[in-house]
């Protein structure tokens, strides 16, 4: 581990606030052959949104830089449409002038996909924040793409419903962004992916055509499922303006257990046991390793409810009958304690405790940022090799890094492996990539489980998708956005 003197510590405090290098310079990129935004163009676009826009690179720093502070664009114009029609007019105009556009929601993406690389116009959905309809019987919500996840949950709670996904960014992330990245999160284990929960959608194509695939009923097998193109394609095939989502019933019984475990083999065993014994009430199964607990304590002064151990597991249950659920949970916990799978643990008796203990998992990303620069990886690895990647990387990087931590949705075979240094180091970057992706590819894992490709992983796409599959992607992109004005430099590798 790098030694942390007080000089480094104060540098650390500053470096996470340092403005990152321009992406284009850092990666020596060439701007695509797009039209330049003239003053007239700018004025016209702003008039299309009734003045609701921001002009000037200086004013746009918060929108030109991502949450992780690893990429930075040079956009001079941000537009905030309020209606689908406005989105359509904007795209129609930009298409005619060959002006590139970046769709942006809450700007919480972790792969540099939500900010420009050069001077693309930012189309920000924040003002498209109306919840149009909630049907309490079918559990379907129709909402505009700019609705923030947390706010959706507040409104849905009035009808005893909740969104089927949950992630740490819920206070800022928006529905359109979630869908366009097929966001996963803490409860995918129980409620499935957005690909199954999005029932209908309205999206706008690169040339301004509004594609209406709105539907609020569960079953609709009529022709090709066009909306699936827009789910997970990260804004490169169209901009989602509205969606209908199948919500889950708000559980009246929520339980949280925080467990200490000695070895990763025990985490695996615990997961099998949880699936068997807790069955249908299991709603989340997350793990954090010891280095995460150390990071949380050092950077955020957060401590776990039990003594530190090599691994900690957070298990959550959702159900409709607290007596039934608690009985099941208790029986399960008793048996895994008695057979030694678990060495200690706690059960949250009230919501406040549950919220506090969840922070130990949900604020991991934030706590790592305090170290300075985070090299963040989100991979799918088969469970039998899951933690091996962390030990391999630790050995490979040794003293060159501050931390190498592993945590994540072990229930979905999704590992978040993060490495930190006080400031960006090309040497460390090159030691990590492409090694980490090649390692994952060799075990037939995915180089990006849920964060997407964005800007950061385009050149590694081939490690998780065959050449033919990528060729199909290009076919689709060329058909839907032949001018490549929608979120260029993202997802598909530059040719």
């Amino acid at each position, binding site marked *: 581990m790098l030694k942390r003197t007080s000089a480094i510590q104060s540098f650390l405090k500053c470096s996470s606030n340092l403005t990152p290098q321009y992406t284009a310079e850092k990666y020596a990129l060439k701007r695509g052959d797009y039209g330049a935004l003239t003053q007239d163009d700018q004025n016209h676009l702003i008039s299309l949104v009734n003045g609701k826009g921001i002009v000037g690179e200086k004013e746009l720093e918060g929108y030109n830089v991502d949450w992780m502070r690893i990429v930075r664009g040079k956009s001079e114009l941000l537009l905030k449409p309020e209606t689908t029609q406005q989105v359509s007019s904007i795209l129609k105009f930009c298409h005619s002038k060959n002006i590139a556009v970046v769709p942006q929601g809450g700007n919480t993406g972790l792969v540099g996909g939500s900010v420009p690389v050069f001077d693309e116009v930012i189309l920000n959905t924040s003002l498209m924040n109306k919840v149009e309809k909630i049907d309490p019987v079918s559990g379907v919500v129709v909402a505009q793409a700019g609705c923030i996840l947390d706010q959706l949950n507040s409104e849905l709670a009035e009808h005893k419903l909740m969104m089927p996904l949950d992630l740490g960014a819920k206070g800022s992330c928006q529905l359109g962004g979630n869908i366009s990245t097929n966001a996963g999160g803490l409860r995918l284990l129980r409620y499935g992916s957005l690909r199954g929960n999005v029932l209908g959608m309205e999206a706008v194509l690169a040339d301004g055509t509004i594609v209406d695939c709105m539907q609020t009923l569960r079953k609709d097998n009529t022709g090709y499922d066009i909306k699936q193109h827009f789910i997970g394609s990260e804004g490169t095939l169209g901009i989602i303006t509205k969606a209908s989502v199948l919500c889950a019933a708000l559980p*009246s019984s929520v339980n949280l257990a925080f467990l200490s475990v000695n070895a990763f083999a025990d985490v695996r065993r615990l997961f099998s046991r949880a699936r068997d014994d807790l069955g249908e009430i299991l709603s989340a199964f997350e793990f954090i390793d010891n280095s995460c607990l150390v990071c949380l304590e050092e950077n955020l002064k957060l401590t776990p409810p039990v003594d530190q151990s090599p691994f900690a597991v957070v298990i959550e249950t959702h159900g409709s009958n607290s007596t039934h659920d608690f009985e099941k949970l208790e029986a399960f*916990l008793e048996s895994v304690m008695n057979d030694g799978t678990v060495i200690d643990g706690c059960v949250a008796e*009230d*919501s*406040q405790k549950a919220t506090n203990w969840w922070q130990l998992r949900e604020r991991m990303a934030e706590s790592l940022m305090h170290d300075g620069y985070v090299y963040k990886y989100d991979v799918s690895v088969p469970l039998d090799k899951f933690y091996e990647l962390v030990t391999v990387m630790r050995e490979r990087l040794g003293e060159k890094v501050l931390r190498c931590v592993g945590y994540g949705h072990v229930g979905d075979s999704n590992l978040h492996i993060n490495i930190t240094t006080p400031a960006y180091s090309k040497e460390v970057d090159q030691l990590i990539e492409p090694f980490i992706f090649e390692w994952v590819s060799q075990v037939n894992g995915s180089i990006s489980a849920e964060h997407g490709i964005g800007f950061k992983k385009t050149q590694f796409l081939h490690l998780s998708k065959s050449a033919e599959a990528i060729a199909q992607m290009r076919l689709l992109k060329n058909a839907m956005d032949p001018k490549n004005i929608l979120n260029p430099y993202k997802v598909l590798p530059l040719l």
Partner: protein
Amino acid sequence: MVRVAVGVKRVIDYAVKIRVKPDGSGVVKDSVKHSMNPFCEIAVEEAVRLKEKKIAKEIVAFTIGPKQCSETLRTALAMGCDRGVHVNVPQLDALTPLQISKMSAKIAETEAADLLIMGKLAIDGDYGQTAAMTAAILDWPQATNLYSLQHNGDNATVEREIDGGLETNEIKTPAVLSVDLRINQPRYATLPNIMKAKKKKVKALKPADLGVDVAPTLTVVKIAEPPTREAGEIVEDVDALIGKLKDAGRI
């Protein structure tokens, strides 16, 4: 060493958004998360600390309410109480603090408690009466809203939170004590203790066993949500502000 009795109440969880029933007869409780009243948790913690300091020899946790209250009792046992008493009352809402106090007093007597510790209030009723009334029924001294407790086996020195600050008292046992928020930080019940708690004895009682009549003496006429906060108004200048305040009869 003293024997301590601790009262614990099962209430709607602190974080739940309370909803009033459409007919105004009460709040929605079905399928709503319940947990131990936070002040009762603090009371249990204080009792367990007395045991750890070897001032208390035994802690009896008791609760009054429907069968689901056994969960609350189990939490108290998992935190370190030795045994429990559950007085089964299907409709807890219908009881008044006076009836609860009578039952608590009886339990303190039958369990031969030297100290009766409770939370200063329950977050649902918000009455804050039970500890004081129980003391009066028992004819025991009382110290309420405790910020700190030092007990030497015969009497206690306590600090109470009052409006002006802290008041220090000395109190002889047996006594009734009620705890306030800042006296301690309750421990988490860890798994090994939760397992042990399952083997601890719980006595099941009915109000009749305690000689208390639970026929309702209070009728709730109506429950309504507080009026929604209205939007504010922005005024042009100070004169306009003064004018508006005068119109509203505020100045």
